[in-house]
């Protein structure tokens, strides 16, 4: 007998329909699997055999051939267990109920229980786009699937339940649809700007960075709160839309990092350690091309603490994704594109001894030592970091702690207003924030008055800015003007922008 069951494969974030064909023929007992299965898929033979047995059904005797079509795509992961089992049972006439139009996804335990798998969301979305409406998935993946509308998803506990469901012996209710808004409002960030005492300059810079989508570098002595500030960035970013959340959830689902919740409702904050390799940052791997930290930070914040400690190679690999907002990972086995649209927040000490600018300790570095330390960060990478800010060299206790600090919500409001202005301005340009402006757009949207030009020229002469700093300052000035609801870039905007260049500050 012959049977055909539908399942899905993932290539990066793209789902591809996979047909699982089984044939049970008379002959010597054998179980062959063809169609480019990887190790995890090949091992499913044993799981399927045991699961069927423990679910109270007969595993057919004879020559069993399972084919995973299309045969030229590599099949990875453990979610083929369930469709393979169903397919074999159907070929062996254990089940005769129709299975057309149903997608099966799930890993089997030896006792027939269904175990959760990764990548449910992107597979569901892809299958839905191709017209599939009914799905059988493990019950532990139910939350993840519940945000997709217009589908009938059955989250079942075991192979036995699946068979009962197919035969109609028991009725199961599809997973109820959940609204994203509810999920979003139920989650809150653990941090808030109001927790950060003082640091007014840095807070202002964060607001500008988020408003214009600028990357930001915080520099300051150790223990002055750079990390805390960075953690507050997601809290002042506009709420994610459902589409954005789905995109992010897809990546986290494929990486197997999705929480109970089933959807990433809050903007991600990723802070890889500075021993991170290029592959762990950008993504890659031998057989399965996994998403890297930059993709997991999609629509959120990538925080690189102690920037100069990262390997040069790892840092340089960030240049292209910072520009293109996606990363294409190419290996012998194929190429995969992951989105990588994040705000880069980096932090570093101002000098090797760390005390430059500290109110308590004296810096013992010479200018050339500082220069050497800073030159670990290449110019092209620096070009992509628009704001370079110093944090106050004071510990919090020293600052008047009775003052009421502004909350993240208040800042977020201003950020959203500025973002709206930018969306309006860049309609049809293919970008949505000031940071993504190219030279042409800077010319078009950032006209400087003569007064501003004079200030800029004077700033370059006196402060010894590099030519590279120019477009950075103009872009930031544009964002400051947007925050101040000013259509024109005014002198004070340029002056303030010129202040966020601690990197080039004289040594």
């Amino acid at each position, binding site marked *: 007998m012959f049977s055909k069951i539908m399942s899905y494969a993932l290539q990066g974030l793209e789902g591809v329909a996979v047909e699982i064909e089984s044939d049970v023929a008379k002959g010597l007992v054998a179980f062959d699997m063809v169609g480019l299965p990887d190790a995890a898929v090949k091992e499913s033979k044993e799981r399927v055999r045991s699961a069927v047995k423990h679910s109270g059904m007969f595993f057919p005797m004879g020559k069993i051939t399972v084919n995973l079509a299309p045969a030229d795509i590599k099949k990875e992961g453990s979610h083929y267990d369930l469709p393979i089992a169903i397919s074999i049972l159907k070929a062996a006439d254990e089940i005769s109920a129709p299975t057309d139009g149903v997608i099966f996804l799930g890993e089997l335990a030896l006792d027939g229980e269904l175990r959760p798998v990764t990548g449910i969301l992107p597979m569901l979305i892809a299958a839905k786009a191709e017209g599939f409406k009914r799905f059988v998935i493990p019950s532990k993946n139910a939350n993840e699937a519940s945000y997709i509308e217009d589908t009938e998803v059955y989250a079942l506990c075991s192979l036995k339940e699946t068979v009962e469901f197919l035969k109609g012996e028991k009725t199961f209710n599809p997973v109820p649809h959940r609204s994203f808004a509810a999920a979003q409002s139920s989650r809150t960030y653990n941090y808030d700007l109001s927790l950060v005492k003082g640091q007014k300059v840095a807070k202002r810079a964060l607001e500008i960075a988020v408003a214009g989508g600028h990357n930001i570098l915080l520099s300051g002595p150790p223990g002055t709160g750079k990390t805390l500030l960075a953690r507050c960035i997601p809290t002042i970013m506009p709420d994610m839309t459902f589409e954005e959340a789905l995109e992010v959830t897809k990546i986290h689902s494929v990486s197997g990092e999705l929480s109970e919740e089933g959807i990433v409702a809050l903007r991600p904050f990723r802070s890889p350690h500075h021993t991170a390799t290029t592959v762990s940052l950008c993504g890659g791997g031998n057989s399965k091309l996994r998403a890297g930290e930059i993709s997991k930070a999609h629509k959120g914040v990538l925080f690189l603490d102690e920037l100069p400690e990262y390997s040069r190679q790892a840092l340089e690999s960030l240049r292209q994704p910072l520009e293109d907002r996606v990363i294409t990972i190419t290996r012998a086995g194929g190429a995969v594109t992951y989105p990588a649209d994040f705000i880069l927040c980096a932090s570093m000490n101002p000098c090797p001894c760390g005390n430059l600018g500290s109110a308590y300790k004296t810096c013992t*570095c010479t200018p050339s030592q500082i220069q050497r330390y800073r030159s670990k960060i290449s110019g092209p990478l620096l070009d992509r970091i628009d704001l370079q800010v110093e944090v106050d060299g004071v510990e919090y206790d020293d600052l008047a702690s009775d003052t009421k600090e502004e909350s993240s919500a208040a800042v977020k409001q201003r950020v959203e207003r500025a973002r709206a202005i930018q969306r309006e301005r860049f309609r049809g340009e293919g970008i949505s924030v000031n940071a993504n402006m190219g030279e042409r757009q800077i010319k078009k949207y950032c006209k400087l008055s003569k007064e501003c030009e004079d200030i800029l020229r004077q700033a370059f*002469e006196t402060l010894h800015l590099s030519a590279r700093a120019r477009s950075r300052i103009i872009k930031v000035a544009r964002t400051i003007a947007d925050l101040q609801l000013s259509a024109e870039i005014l002198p004070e905007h340029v002056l303030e922008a010129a202040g966020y260049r*601690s990197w080039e500050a*004289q040594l």
Partner: protein
Amino acid sequence: MTEYSPAELAVILFDSMRDISAAFRRALRANPEDFVKQSFELIKTHGGGVYNKVKALFYDGDYRREVLGGLDKRGVKCVTYFSKQYPPSLKRIPDPPAALYVKGDTSLLSRRLFAVVGSRRTSPQAIALCRRISESLCSQFAVVTGIADGADTAAAEGALKGGGAVCVLPYGCDYAYPAMNKRLIDEIAGKGLAVSEYPPQTDVRAYRFPERNRIIAGLCEGGLIVSAGEKSGALITAEKLAEYGKKVFAFPYTPGIQTGAGCNALIKRGAKLCDSEKDIFGEFGLSFGGRKSDLSEEEAKLLKTIRAMGEVFVPTLADKTGTPVYMLLPLLSSLEIKGFVARLGGNRFSAV
């Protein structure tokens, strides 16, 4: 090819043969009129091999063309002991250089010269003040400095802006140390004057720094020590300035600041305390026009507050003045650009 007189040529040739330089310098100091003959006499003491080699090279036309061609190729001119441009003040020091290899505007050597030097570790306030004073000094003097990081670099930058930068290098012009100052040296050679006692191929050696300091001291009518630790090289310059009877000025420092201990020690020993260009101009009986100030009302008010508070953090300033940070930052930037405040790092500012 630049034309040199026979005496100048002899100095250049002897100077190009580094292994005999001590002998020929002695001859030059003892008897400038007949130093060629005297030199050969002294070189004889080195032994026949050296003597014959030197003599052969000295009269070899190819070698002569190679040395002079090398200078021309690099755009270096040689001002020797016998040249008209040789600064008379240098002839008065005990160990005058036989030749100065110069690149840039030679006429600066005939201006009044004043030294501004300091240590590599210099606080941002001192850097900012040093830059400003160097610029102002250029109305009367050309500013002579070394080319180390920190104070020297600031002095050179200020002087470049004022249009009178002279820097004395402790190595030949083929080198740059630290390498990151190459750009600055090139700029000085273009708009000011880079001077070295050493032929272009001379590399960087620690002992040449004090040798160089004596030239800075010898050239100038006086010198300002911007910053100096207890064992700073800037103190050698100060020592030499005093030895040659020149005026020494030093910035005052709060006790306990390491980078200022040397300056305070100098003041204790009679150096003149200097905290603005007026002190220097006054000492030389020159008038100083004062600083141009085109501050807006708000900027002037803020500057007054900063002056009253000393070193101040931006948030403290915001609390004190009741101005939100986003309004303070542009004002501070503007004051910094105009040179009235210095950024000390960690969002601290101080008036200059």
